[in-house]
């Protein structure tokens, strides 16, 4: 038991302790707000419609970030399109078709371990497997597939939770009315779990947009406008990293950071709002 020196009456000790904890908490929250404030204050000034729609020129020191925005959309898109059916399928299997046992333990171990693998290892793997072994080269495809592997555990976890939250009676009723197990899942359970599932997908999108290490070694750094899945492209976060580390342009770096932060903020707000709607439905 943690005991403060006896000079302090327990109730006074409590006041002190609580004050300290609150201070630490508010400091933590303050740091977050400061980070956002700092980036936005210095960056927003340089963000305009032109910045978002113009192509980067001279390595990004002049012009905008349009090709990186497009690149980010493509790579994230591939990632989500590949990860969602697989993740959802896995979640449906875990929630609807098996009981807790050896198989589910193996699957969960796989998903949890995958969730903890550092992004640099994903980047390295993506390079060794997609770029080199499968000969996709540095491309949207390589980057997108690597991202898909990264966000798969998130989608599995949130989808499974969403499916399990659907009351068992829904399934029972559907079956009793002549639906097969799969029909019950598709027509009743999944629509009911949809907000939760969507939240997981949105979180996956957020993760993809912030990701740098995995993408830089698989999608490359080309600033050209990508036209096919096999084109190399630079995402916003990679562009931001390059601008910073190679000291290309501080204002552009701040501006790109601002765009990144606002994008993440919007994604998180969307996910949070959906999660709220979902839990309120089953309150």
């Amino acid at each position, binding site marked *: 038991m943690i005991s403060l020196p006896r000079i302090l009456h327990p109730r006074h000790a409590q006041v002190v302790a609580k004050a300290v904890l609150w201070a630490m908490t508010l400091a933590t929250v303050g740091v977050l707000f400061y980070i956002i404030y700092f980036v936005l204050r210095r960056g927003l000034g340089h963000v305009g419609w032109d910045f978002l729609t113009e192509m980067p020129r001279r390595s990004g020191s002049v012009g905008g970030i349009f090709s990186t925005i497009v690149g980010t959309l493509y790579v994230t898109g591939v990632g989500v399109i590949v990860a969602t059916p697989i993740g959802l399928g896995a979640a449906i299997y875990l929630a609807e078709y098996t009981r807790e046992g050896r198989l589910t333990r193996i699957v969960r171990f796989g998903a949890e371990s995958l969730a903890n693998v550092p992004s640099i290892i994903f980047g390295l793997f993506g390079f060794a497997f997609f770029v080199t072994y499968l000969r996709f080269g540095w491309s949207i495809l390589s980057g997108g597939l690597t991202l898909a592997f990264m966000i798969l555990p998130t989608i599995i976890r949130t989808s499974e939770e969403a499916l399990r939250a659907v009351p068992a*009676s*829904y399934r*029972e*009723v*559907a*079956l*009793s*009315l*002549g*639906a*097969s*197990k*799969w*029909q019950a899942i598709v*027509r*009743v359970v999944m629509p*009911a779990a949809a907000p939760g599932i969507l939240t997981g997908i949105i979180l996956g999108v957020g993760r993809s947009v912030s990701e740098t290490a995995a993408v830089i070694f698989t999608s490359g750094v080309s600033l050209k406008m990508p036209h096919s899945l096999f084109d190399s492209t630079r995402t916003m976060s990679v562009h931001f990293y390059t601008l910073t580390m190679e000291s290309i342009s501080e204002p552009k770096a701040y501006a790109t950071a601002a765009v990144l932060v606002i994008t993440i903020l919007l994604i998180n707000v969307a996910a949070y709002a959906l999660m709220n709607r979902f839990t309120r439905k089953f309150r």
Partner: protein
Amino acid sequence: MSGDSGTYALVKIAARDVEIRYRGKVALKPATFDIRTSTIHSIIGPAGSGKTSFLRSLNLMSIELDGAAIKGSIKVDEEEILTIRGAEKLAKLRRRIGIVFATPQPLPRSIYENIAFGPRIAGTKKKADLDALVEESLRSAHMWDEVKDRLDLMGTSLSGGQQQRLCLARTLALKPDIVLLDEPCSALDPISTYKIEQSMQELKGNVTFVLVTNNTKQAARVADRTAFFLMGELVEDGPTSKIFTRPNDQRTGDYIEGRFG
């Protein structure tokens, strides 16, 4: 009190030595009795007697969902159902044998969609056909006038009694031969209870009802025949009037008189 006049009626469901176990533990010792066509057959008894286990076995839900192991034979229209396998056949069985659960469970959809759910899966596509089915089912459940202008209202926004009648209506939409009811009125007000009992009596010409109930008075009101289950055993089965006035078994009389519950 409705009674069976003793005239011979066809057997709809024939249960022979039906034994139900969950994980090895016996929920119902071998039970044998008949449920006759176009009757309301009630099953009474205290909690834990095996009534619900038996009921849910009639549409194989106890096996599929509750993990029950069943021995013996259950024949519906002389066809054995315990050997039915395969999603197709199970679905077909459940369209013939509908069920209303103890707590009203409307799907999170409109009234119309709740009722149209089963028929849609069964293949009915045309709007006109579905409309007709919805109206007919709601009329059978004595609900049409109440909700006919609000068919797109969410099923969950109805009152408890209305929800349960909705559940009955959506089961009827599939035109089943048999409807199982698992203590359907235990959470309902007397008026809703009355309306459901009325529906049963009106429809029994075409539908055989198997009614599990905790409420002996309800059994006395509506059932043609009654079976008494006690602690996992079928004690007695016979015409309702007889069960309630001159039962063969001492325990039956004790339960009905309320000497134990």
